[in-house]
């Protein structure tokens, strides 16, 4: 798995053609709300539980 593959997969999932420009000030005070963190944790649990089957 290469850095480029991770980047490309993320851009594809977000339907973006290039990496968005965010600077430190944008995210410095950004708080992740509980419902977003809960969604993330739920996907994380599912990712460790459910297997997708490659060919």
């Amino acid at each position, binding site marked *: *798995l290469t*850095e480029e593959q*991770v*980047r490309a*997969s*993320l851009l594809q*999932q*977000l339907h973006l053609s290039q*990496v*968005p*420009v*965010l*600077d*430190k000030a*944008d*995210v410095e005070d*950004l708080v*992740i*709300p509980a419902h*977003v*963190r809960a*969604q*993330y944790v739920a*996907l*994380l649990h599912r*990712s*460790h539980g*459910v*297997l*997708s*089957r*490659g*060919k």
Partner: protein
Amino acid sequence: RFSQKFREVAGRLLASEAALRRHERLFQRSARARVTVEWLRVRDDGTNRTSLVDSRLVSLHESGWKAFDVTEAVSLWQQLSRPRQPLVLQVSVQREHLGPLASDAHKLVRFASQVAGDAGQREPQLELHTLDLKAYGAQGDCDPEAPVAEGARCCRQETYIDLQGMKWAENWVLEPPGFLAYECVGACQQPQESLTFQWPFLGPRQCISSETASLPMIVGIKEGGRARPQVVSLPNLRVQKCSCTSDGVPVPRELGP
């Protein structure tokens, strides 16, 4: 026929007869028939259940071996709890196209007999070759303490992807800071030459990722000049299992609970 365990399997040869040439002028050269292999099982309530295993179009103007891949059915059948029903595979021949104008060419397909010149029972043949995955399979996770030696057996090796170390991810990927991705390394034991035949689907066995899992991330999305967090899931990013298999051959799947 070659396995000690399945001695009761008798084999026949699957082929369409060259004698069809006598009917050549009846059907245009591209006439084909669909040959389908289904797995027949009887449910507890006595009703039949069929599962499609393999199906392909066969030209009426050819004769010889036509190989169908029944690996998945055999593998799943082997995992059924005992006492289990015999493995019954039904081979049927249908028209290529449906509808009133479809030709009856498919009725000309014949299964050849195993013994040349034998006008006896003409049935398809199932040749079953098994490999002991304890010897020919992967070995699970590599030993994290020891580097993978040359020629070591296929295993899953830890590899850490440090997202914080990636310039493009700065200020964009908020979670996770990094993750264990794993990769499949090592070699697979190859069957003896005599077993590999020249059938199209038995190439060299390779160490591949046979089961993967997605990876969720939290990224910053800028809207209206303000950034907000969003969850996104990246499919097939983490290797869950490595297996030894030949290209195009399905990896035996464990039956679910």
